[in-house]
């Protein structure tokens, strides 16, 4: 057991810190972390940031060097997440392309596909989205019904996806759909297509979310066209490619664990600064007790993740432990943000006009998605039960 970093890892961290100091958007290090409100300006801002990251080789640190990455180890990837969380860096508009789709193309794509797509991902020249969920296929993903039929030298796609992040900005979509009707097993007959979003048959419609954002979309495919060879992996064996893609999510939960720590530190600072009934909140015995309890639970989020990481490094593969990290971190973050709003007393019911510019309200409202998106807490529990504890699967109906 050893919680220290190697000199090489510390150097990686130092290099990143130095780069961030130079390259974060103006005012960012001074605490102004607002994105432009105008959607067009926001998009330009994010694409520029992504481009800058790519130029510094800080866009896809896990990518092989030959593709513009740094071939970073798992631990370096985690250091990367930690540092980016520490400065609350702007999001990568092409996060899905970089985190999951690019690596999947590198792993399973043809040489032609690799040449065509991979170089344009890191710098956001082409932004990608991922089309998995459908209105009637959420937790039960394999029940999806969006379908493609081969007509001559192209696929014709019809159906509807939902929760496609950034689809409204995306140039391309990694689309999981059905190419064989009535298969014996519903995981059969699925295929992954690489779809051009800039065509008449594709229409993303932003979803208005409870936090008043519109990051997710419904995406409608109405006779959309995909060249025949734009299949990733094998036709009718798309479930495999879909699972490979998800396996690249392995360090993304690190980000949540670090955000938890940031949130906790911020809440602590708030409680030291703000008074209630004539004394700092932190001196209220109930507040003090609860924050001390969170001390352990927040620290444990990182520790749990580090244990999982160690296991991954030793075994060379991700595992169901990732579900435990996701479950633990997302539930705790939601709880912590709710508590932060409560601590503001009656003024907590404000939103943009609340204390600290409504940051806690923003986080609170956003955190409801965390226990749902990317697999609900209930689905995570099933995975943990079945794969870590060997409990029986839910009935196959």
């Amino acid at each position, binding site marked *: 057991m050893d919680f220290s970093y190697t000199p090489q890892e510390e150097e990686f961290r130092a290099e990143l810190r130095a780069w961030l100091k130079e390259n974060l958007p103006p005012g960012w290090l001074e605490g102004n972390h607002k994105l432009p409100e105008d959607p067009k300006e926001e998009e330009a801002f994010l694409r520029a940031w992504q481009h800058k990251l790519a130029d510094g080789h800080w866009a896809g640190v896990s990518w092989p060097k030959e593709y513009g990455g740094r071939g970073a180890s798992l631990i370096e990837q985690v250091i990367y997440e930690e540092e980016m969380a520490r400065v609350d860096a702007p999001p990568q508009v092409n996060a899905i392309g970089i985190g999951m789709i690019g690596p999947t193309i590198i792993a399973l794509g043809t040489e032609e596909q690799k040449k065509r797509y991979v170089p344009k991902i890191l710098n956001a020249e082409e932004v990608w989205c991922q089309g998995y*969920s459908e209105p*009637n296929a*959420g*937790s*039960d993903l394999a*029940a999806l019904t969006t379908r493609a039929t081969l007509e001559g030298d192209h696929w014709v796609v019809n159906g509807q996806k*939902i*929760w496609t992040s950034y689809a409204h900005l995306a140039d391309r979509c990694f689309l999981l759909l059905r190419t064989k009707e009535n298969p014996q097993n519903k995981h059969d007959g699925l295929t992954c297509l690489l779809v051009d979003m800039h065509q008449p048959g594709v229409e993303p419609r932003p*979803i*208005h*979310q*409870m936090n*008043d954002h519109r990051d997710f979309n419904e995406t409608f495919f109405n006779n959309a066209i995909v060249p025949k060879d734009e299949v990733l992996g094998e036709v009718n064996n798309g479930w495999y490619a879909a699972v490979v893609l998800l396996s690249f999510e392995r360090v993304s939960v690190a980000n949540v664990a670090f955000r938890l720590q940031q949130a906790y530190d911020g809440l602590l600072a708030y409680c030291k600064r703000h008074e*209630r*009934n004539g004394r700092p909140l932190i001196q209220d015995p*109930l507040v003090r007790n609860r924050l001390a309890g969170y001390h352990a639970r927040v620290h444990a989020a990182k520790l749990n993740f580090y244990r999982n990481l160690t296991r991954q490094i030793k075994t060379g593969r991700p595992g169901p432990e990732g579900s435990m990290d996701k479950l633990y971190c997302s539930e705790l973050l939601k709880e912590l943000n*709710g508590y932060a*709003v*409560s601590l*503001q*007393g*009656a*003024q*907590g*019911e*404000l*939103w*943009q*006009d*609340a204390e600290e510019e*409504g940051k806690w*309200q923003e986080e*609170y*409202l956003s955190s*409801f*998605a965390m*226990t*749902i*998106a990317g697999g*609900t*807490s*209930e689905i995570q*529990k099933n995975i943990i039960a079945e794969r870590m504890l060997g409990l029986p699967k*839910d009935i196959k*109906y």
Partner: protein
Amino acid sequence: MDFSLSDDQLMLQQNARQFFTAQRGTRPARKAMEGDVASTKALWKQMAELGYPAITIAEAFGGAGEGFLSLVPVLEEAGRVLAPGPLPETVGFAVPLLTRLGTQAQKQQYLQGIADGSEIVTLAFYESSCDAFAGQATVTAERTAAGFRLNGQKVLVPNADLATALIVLARTTAGPAGEGLSLFIVDPKASGVQMRLQRPMDQTRPLFAVSFEQTEVGEEALIGPLDEGWTAAEEALRTLAVSLSVLSVGAMDACVEQSAEYAKTRVQFGQPIGRFQAVKHRIVDMKVNLETARSLTYYAAWALEEGSSDRHVAAADAKSFTAQAFVRVANANIQNHGGMGFTWEAEPHLYAKRAKAWENYIGSPEAHLDYIAAAQGW
């Protein structure tokens, strides 16, 4: 021993249910979210025509002269659809306060006005520097020849844009918390009154910062004895706390219904999701929270109507439990709806935001628990 609403009360509930259903449920609330004050005004007018704000007002002033329990069914139904407007502040605070302490002239103006729908009253109690519900205020009301002069700023005033009268807690004499404060009823159009929207999480319920700059009010604006406004307010705040609890119970009932309905119809893995115990039992937990909140709230309403000696503790029991239970229930409702629960168009977020908004309104759960402890001499 009979723990149920009377036949008259049940009929009132049925009528209110029909009325709010005819308004298409949360549609008025959603209109209010978009800033459509006219729509909320129109709703209020209709509610007044049905006699809702008049229920507990004495017949002498155009009311129905009923006890607090008769308000319960209407508030519960209003809560179910998150009906916009300062209904709890008007019927849960202004009416009992004025009934108890108002002068004949005040009653004629305000109680009669509330009964006929022409007066809508809200509360200007909180200030940015102090939690008004600890009996403090920095807004001052100086004596003048003709009455009083108000200066200072209140915050978190619900529906100030709609209200025809604000009840303002102000300091009339220097003193510690709870002393030297008085209550005034003030026209928001009076000179020197300015208001600014404070954007709330629960957009169905706009909040305002209301400032007074040399605002002159007459002697007749004073409610109850000078310098004893806090004592007067405290009693009425208990009624408001129970009113909020009743509205919350209605809202929780809607959440349970939404979750049950969704769980019966939403199919995943070839089954309605209500067949999965993770969802099924969570809805049961919601139901248990709901019914427990309802029991405590009905009891508190009964204790208020009877003037029973444990009415203040019963109110604190109801408010502290219900405020927390509503948050639990409304948040679980989102989770039960999966991704859909996170959308603006779906209903659950409206309830979750209302729950959070009312968690600490009129005193946090901790403050009410403290009251329970103190009242029993712990």
